[in-house]
């Protein structure tokens, strides 16, 4: 008879294991989530209790399994144009600079990273925002092709959904405005299909934020919103350093509007525009000639 009850002791063991190996902090109130989301691993491995699953994880140290566990316990929440004002930062503060840089022939593309992109609303919002800006300002010499938008998530399944570029009417009601919807989507029944050009402008990749960022290259702009809230303090510190080393000269980091970034001063200048905080890396670590 399977003993499925996740005792306090087992929950504490998992809480500790997940924090040590995944850098993710599970609050006590979320114990019920662990219970429902880890049970499928008991079935898969024919185990009788969570203690057995815990022991198996500690002994086997399988990176792929650890990633699956992170995928299972993390909630992929995202919205269109979340927080609203970062998009004004992009349009009013950043795009004019990028357009100047492109016209000055700096070489290569403006690289933008959407980390923990979930089902794709953020990277697609970035692409639509840029495309609409170019259209509205009559900028004909620059297109989305001058930008490279990289979107990553730890979950293969969620990336599969993101790549579809198809959204239901409930998801579309959360953050999508009528004008963007009319310009970039067509409706088929209850499903909304994203414009192919926007869909193709985003590259989706599976990526674990605990790994080295070096393989991703350098970015002019990083969206790292509502990701760090799940992390341990140790992982947050490590990730800030890795982000700093991934930004080009005067590269910008955007966090969630309600996220607090207390130690930004060491590496970043904070700026505030229309209720959005954005952080420009001090000096920048890399010259233009080697950043691309």
């Amino acid at each position, binding site marked *: 008879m399977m003993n499925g009850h996740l005792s*306090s002791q087992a929950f504490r063991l998992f809480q500790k294991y997940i924090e040590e190996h995944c850098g993710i902090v599970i609050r006590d109130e979320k114990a*019920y989530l662990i219970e429902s989301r880890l049970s499928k691993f008991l079935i898969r491995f024919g185990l009788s209790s969570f203690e057995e699953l815990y022991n198996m994880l500690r002994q086997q140290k399988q990176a792929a399994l650890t990633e699956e566990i992170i995928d299972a316990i993390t909630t992929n929440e995202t919205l269109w144009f979340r927080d609203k004002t970062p998009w004004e930062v992009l349009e009013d503060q950043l795009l004019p600079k990028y357009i100047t840089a492109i016209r000055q022939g700096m070489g290569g593309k403006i690289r933008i990273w959407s980390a923990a992109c979930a089902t794709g609303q953020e990277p697609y919002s970035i692409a639509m925002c840029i495309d609409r800006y170019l259209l509205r300002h009559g900028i004909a010499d620059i297109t989305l092709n001058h930008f490279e938008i990289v979107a990553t998530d730890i979950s293969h399944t969620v990336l599969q959904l993101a790549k579809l570029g198809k959204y239901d*009417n*409930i998801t579309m*009601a959360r953050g999508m405005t009528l004008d963007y919807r009319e310009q970039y989507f067509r409706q088929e029944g209850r499903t909304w299909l994203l414009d192919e050009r926007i869909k193709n402008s985003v590259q989706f990749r599976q990526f674990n934020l605990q790994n080295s960022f070096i393989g991703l290259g350098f970015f002019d702009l990083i969206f790292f919103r509502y990701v760090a809230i799940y992390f341990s303090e140790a992982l947050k510190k490590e990730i800030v350093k890795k982000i700093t080393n991934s930004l080009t000269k005067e590269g910008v980091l955007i966090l969630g509007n309600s996220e607090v970034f207390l130690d930004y001063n060491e590496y970043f200048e904070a700026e505030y525009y229309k209720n959005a905080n954005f952080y420009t890396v001090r000096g920048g670590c890399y010259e233009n000639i080697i950043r691309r």
Partner: protein
Amino acid sequence: MESQKKSFLQKCLAESVSDVFSTMVGVELCPVQEKAAAPKGYKSEITGVMMILSTHNALLSIALSKENAAMIVSFMTGIASVELADDELYDGVAELVNMIAGRAKALLAGTDYHYQITPPLTIVGENHFILYKKNVSQLSMEFEAGEIKLHLDLTYL
């Protein structure tokens, strides 16, 4: 109701309401500070009800206006509120109280307050209220998000 028990239950219910509404409705519903001497017998147009079966049985209810119910169910389903039939509003409210009770049940598992639940039901009617016997032990909470207002009662029978 003793204050430690009240405080503990309020925290669980606030967490449950917040989880359910942020997930299913996409709205952050927050508890409003208790007003002094709130009148008993809150009047509303739609009330979702669950029986809580425990060592001390109780009734969990969420009460709201029809307009708010339409807004909420519209957010839940992506269907414009004008296109929703009344039955769908009542069903939506019943499901919300079902999920709130279910979440709270999970939070209270293993404590002295653990319970079982019954299927939900909905009470409908303009200006209706639920009348309990005098001196029942009751915990009342108000929640708000923009124009949305929800009244929650946990009443021990």
